[in-house]
């Protein structure tokens, strides 16, 4: 079946968090002074133009999933977000069981907003919880009251979201093991079906990056971060959340199908400022700034900045790099003898699952997941 998943990028946030290097802008940065609903309406109009352009380019028929990320998608009016879903549904065939997700900030949603989102067509919601510990949230520049998360997830279930996820971040400066344990226990007490947990990456060009470089912030060492991963994996598994990707755990059947499409190398269209697309070995991405995006879409409907056509080697690198992150792993038979060369020693050191290996699959063990990038390098060298 010829499918095309959609990612929709909303490049706006009320304020920027110190660790974040995503393509997002605050109203202040964009000198937006009027009511934000005007910005919402006009940006959505542009997205609709880009979806029309996607229709022209793509041969796909069915859309199995849509994911709204940001930025802060919920800054847009729910009915505007609904216009995007409807547009995709009219230009393509939205699968009957299509997974339609939005990211949401637990601080700014109301029960009414959640109701509107559900009514606009969303059936999955992912809250940026990050931590349950105030000083950790403060270090991340997040200001929400941890109790808001319980409220938001409960409301989400009440208004009819069957799939509710939270995002967690570990390895923040000053976060102790017991802080992390508190976060994990709090998350597991929520009415959720899915958890993503990410080790904080210090990106250059962010406020945090600069602070670390200047020595003002000292990041916890990797060994402690590794311990936190192991603790998370133990607790999630015990609570019935199984890992299906390195940083993602879910109740059975609640995996995020949209994200799995990335790791499987499926085709997807990224609409919006700075969004990335992948179609049949071609990767392309849009201009990043909302102003440039606006101009390009108005001119031609095509906001692409650049593209790359993957060579066979590059495609192979990506395939291994992505598949190894999944609990389904890589079939041993798909690896050349040279690619397999380093694997027996990783198996011997406990980084690969023994029974899976016997069954002909390369699947990372708990400790193996923590050194996945190293294993990829060894396979590919």
């Amino acid at each position, binding site marked *: 079946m010829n499918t095309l998943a959609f990612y929709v990028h909303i490049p706006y946030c009320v304020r920027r968090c110190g660790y974040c290097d995503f393509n997002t802008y605050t109203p202040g940065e964009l000198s937006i002074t009027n009511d934000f609903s005007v910005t919402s309406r006009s940006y959505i109009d542009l997205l609709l133009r880009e979806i029309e352009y996607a229709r022209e380019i793509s041969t796909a028929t069915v859309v199995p999933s849509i994911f709204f990320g940001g930025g802060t998608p919920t800054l847009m009016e729910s009915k505007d977000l609904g216009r995007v879903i409807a547009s995709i549904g009219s230009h393509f065939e939205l699968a009957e069981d299509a997974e339609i997700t939005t990211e949401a900030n637990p601080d700014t949603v109301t029960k009414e907003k959640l109701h509107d989102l559900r009514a606009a067509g969303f059936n999955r919601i992912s809250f940026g919880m990050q931590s349950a510990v105030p000083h950790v949230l403060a270090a991340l520049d997040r200001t929400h009251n941890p109790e808001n998360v319980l409220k938001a997830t409960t409301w989400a279930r009440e208004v009819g979201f069957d799939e509710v996820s939270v995002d967690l971040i570990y390895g923040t400066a000053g976060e102790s093991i017991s802080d992390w344990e508190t976060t994990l226990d709090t998350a597991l007490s929520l009415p959720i079906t899915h958890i993503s947990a990410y080790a904080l990456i210090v990106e250059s060009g962010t406020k945090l990056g600069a602070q670390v470089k200047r020595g003002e912030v000292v990041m916890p060492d990797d060994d402690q971060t590794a311990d936190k991963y192991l603790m998370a994996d133990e607790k999630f598994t015990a609570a019935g959340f199984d890992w299906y990707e*390195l940083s993602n755990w879910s109740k059975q059947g609640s995996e995020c199908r949209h994200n799995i499409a990335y790791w499987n190398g499926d085709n997807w269209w990224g609409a919006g400022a700075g*969004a990335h697309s992948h179609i049949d070995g071609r990767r392309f991405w849009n201009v990043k700034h909302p102003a440039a995006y606006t101009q390009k879409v108005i001119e031609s409907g095509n906001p692409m900045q650049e593209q790359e056509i993957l060579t066979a080697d*590059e495609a192979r690198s990506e395939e291994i790099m992505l598949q190894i992150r999944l609990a389904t792993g890589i079939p041993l038979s798909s690896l050349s003898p040279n690619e397999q060369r380093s694997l027996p020693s990783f198996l011997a050191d406990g*980084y690969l699952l023994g029974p899976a290996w016997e069954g002909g699959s390369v699947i990372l063990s708990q*400790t193996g997941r923590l050194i996945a*990038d*190293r294993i*990829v*390098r060894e396979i590919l060298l």
Partner: protein
Amino acid sequence: MPAIPLAKAPQPSFTSPAQLRNFCIIAHIDHGKSTLADRMLGITEVVDPRNMRAQYLDRMDIERERGITIKSQAVRLPWRSGLDNQEYILNMIDTPGHVDFTYEVSRSLAACEGAVLLVDCAQGIEAQTLANLYLAMENNLTIIPVLNKIDLPAAQPEKFAEELAKLIGCQPEDCLRVSGKTGAGVTELLDQIVLQIPSPIGDANAPTRALIFDSVYDTYRGVVTYVRVIDGHLSTRDQIQMFSTGVRHEMLEVGVISPEPVVSKGLGVGEVGYVITGVKDVRQSRVGDTITTYNNPAKVALAGYKDPRPMVFSGLFPIDGADFPLLREALDKLQLNDAALVYEPESSAALGFGFRCGFLGLLHMEIVRERLERESNLTLISTAPNVVYSVTTGDGQLLTVTNPSEYPEGKIEKVEEPIVRATVLAPAEFIGTIMELCQERRGTLLGMDYLSEDRVEIRYTLPLAEIVFDFFDQLKSRTRGYASLDYEPIGEAEGDLVKVDILLQGEKVDAFSAIVHKDKAYTYGTMMTGKLRELIPRQQFEIPIQAAIGGRIIARESIRAIRKDVLAKCYGGDISRKRKLLEKQKEGKKRMKMVGRVEVPQEAFVAALTTDADIDKAKAKAKERE
């Protein structure tokens, strides 16, 4: 004006010995020899003021940058003495200023009748200068003591005049005072050279004997040999013969340096100049050898010829293994100009293919390495330098070991190592510090003398190996740079020596093996294992690092397995970026050397074999790569 236009000056081959004065300048690095030489070139007007540049006679970039002379030169300076208004020819023979080149210095001195002892009157005499002064005195040279830099505010001419007077047995007021920088006193110095230094004596009718005091390879001309004629005459018509090799050469050109080469008809008794014979390799025209004529050969060579003997050995390896042929070419080229450099191919399990090289000393080693890197655009790793050991095995076999990897396994009867006599000059306040350092380094005190009230000369015998291993750095840092060092080999002595191996995950890393004194083995082992623990990045398994003597482990460290090497997020927009990072990391991995299963970064080798400062650099680089 006391300068004489070149064309009107006495010409080579027709200058009587009575008009000649051959002298050299003995000075420490920084004491202003090159500046004084520049001033002499200016005052005698052999260099047009428009063409004048600083350190005119230092030809190589390295010489200019480091302010040291590696090779000597001889410049012919016409001069009309202000004392008797007569015309003279002064041959200024520049001498290398470093302990590694003592033999070359001694040959330069043998070509002179006098020496200008040049001392910075803000610093006083240094150990190497003293050593060269003693050499000059042994050669019966007339010494003219000169205090330089009298224009400096920190100058203490009275104090150092006392010191010089005491050393050479003259009166303090006999010391001339000059400033190479301003030119003050330089004219008087030239006049005093004429007055005090004897003219050369030789037999013009005897068979020709000329001393080679330097030999330089020139890309266009082949080897240019610098000579001082002792007896007889050299002319372009002659066929010449080298005493040491017996090989005959055509004479293509004879000339003098003034300070650019000027072709002449020949060179007479006492004259200094150059000859070109078409020889392509300085080893065929060796410093210290005697040139005679083929048709009327002299029977006895001039005294003092020695083959250069390498004292320090080190392995040189290209960082990029593909550069090995380039390194060979570069060494071949360098050897054309450096008779003291010896090398042979060596292969190291850790570092790949390279060369085991022998050097006169540490400076010589540094210069060779720098020239190879600079002139052939190579990046090299050099292994820790070591000396030559004579090892007698249990079954009575005698082995010469120039590389720790040649050190025999099994029972060893005895090991002998080279011993030097070292002289340290320093302010008296550092006596304790210096003695402590020398004791730590297995030194034996020979004696101590006060040069002046607050400066001493301390003499020790020390194993050369101890000097090769950062002695000079230690001496400088412990005396805040005030001490100077000179040494000369005096033979071999038995030492209680062992070979320490370094093992990574049980695999011996040949590049890190060292021959050390038994009492230092533990220190070396812990130092090296500690350094490597810092330098080798964590890998997916634990890496034991051990130091061992034979089968006995004397120190151990371990690098814990890496626990986390993964980026947590990988969604649509991350994929391209992550793949590119992966490709970069793959490139980085290619630069790793494998020791068994262990990946060792190049920088770790370099840093482990050098100093602490380099370790910091390597760490920074490793971090960048992460």
